[in-house]
């Protein structure tokens, strides 16, 4: 009896062990494959017809006040007012061909002589 059953018993043990190993290997392999799967790439975007627009802003900032001199800055007046409109100065100038033109020393028009100021009136300086 023992002799008859013994081989059968060991055969069953071997069979079940083999089945268990096969199942376990398969399960581990499936689990491994699942965890190492690279996330699916997103679907390819349609080709852009135009390149993406880059927004760039250029700002010109004027210095709010002059750079501070070493010996100090005197604020004579701080009452911001709108800048003046362009002032067109009209005068008659003799142009000498392509080399003509000039800076401050220009031919004076035949203008009426300015009225003489009072001898005590202050001289003025307003730039040229």
């Amino acid at each position, binding site marked *: 009896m023992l002799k008859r059953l013994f081989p059968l018993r060991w055969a069953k043990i071997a069979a079940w062990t083999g089945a268990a190993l096969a199942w376990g290997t398969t399960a581990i392999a499936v689990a491994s494959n699942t965890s190492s799967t690279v996330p699916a790439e997103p679907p390819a975007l349609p080709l852009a017809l135009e390149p993406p627009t880059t927004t760039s802003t250029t700002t010109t900032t004027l210095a709010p006040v002059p750079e501070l*001199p*070493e010996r100090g800055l005197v604020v004579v007046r701080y009452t911001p007012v709108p800048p003046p409109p362009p*002032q067109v100065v009209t005068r008659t100038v003799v142009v000498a061909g392509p080399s003509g033109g000039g*800076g401050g020393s220009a031919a004076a028009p035949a203008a009426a002589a300015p009225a003489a100021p009072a001898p005590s009136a202050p001289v003025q*300086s307003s730039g*040229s």
Partner: protein
Amino acid sequence: MKRNLFRAMGTTIDVTAPTADALAETRDLFETVEATCSRFLPDSELSHINTAPGAEVRLSPTMARVMHAADTARTITHGFVDAGVGASVREWGYDISFEAVNARIDRAAPAHTPNPEWSVKGAMLNRNPGTQIDLGGVAKGWTCDLAVAQGTAAIVSAGGDVRSVVSDARVEIVDPWGDIATTLLVGVGALATSSVSRRRWRLQDREVNHLIDPRTMEPSSGPVLQASAVTATALEAEAAAKAILLQGADGLAWADRQPWIRAALVVWHDGSVFATTGLGMAA
């Protein structure tokens, strides 16, 4: 004292002199220098210099003295005031009357003008082919100094360049809006004002003016509308005012470091007025 106003060098000359003869001599002096140094007069010596071929030109005694004054202005301002920018001034549109310039809106901005190169030794001027001379401001300041030096004027103002030998002489600085920014006690000394608010026009979509920055060879575009400087001579004051204006926000600090500039004042683009210490403001 006698006082008289007349037109010369494209501006109003205001002279206070001891006698009527002195007034007349001062007027003759300005007219003589203008006939020599104007680039608007086709027969002036400067017009001939600017069209003369070759690198070297021999100068008349008067022109040589003015060119040496221009050389001094260039040196003391570290190159900010350069009489060699004449070609650029002309190409940016200041070659005809302001009325015509202002109408020339569609004219293209000029290509970059080569940096000027010139030198003067004795009576010989040497310059590169593209360099043209503009003596506008220098000639005015130099003539004011000469009028005082030769004793024919006690106070003389040429378009804002003032030279005085009167100890209590006061000068009103008028801002671009026509208001008096301040009144200065100039005394024995000089004061000059340079402005970009008056002589300016439009070139296509850009507003330009007559003050060329030698660093860029383009019109000044800084935050200063007007600059004034107090110095010993009108030539120095004229040069200082231009250099301060061209340096924009750095102008007053630069002026403060120059021992030859007694004081400086700027009118900012928003109408504010700033100055260095030492400005002798009259009450």
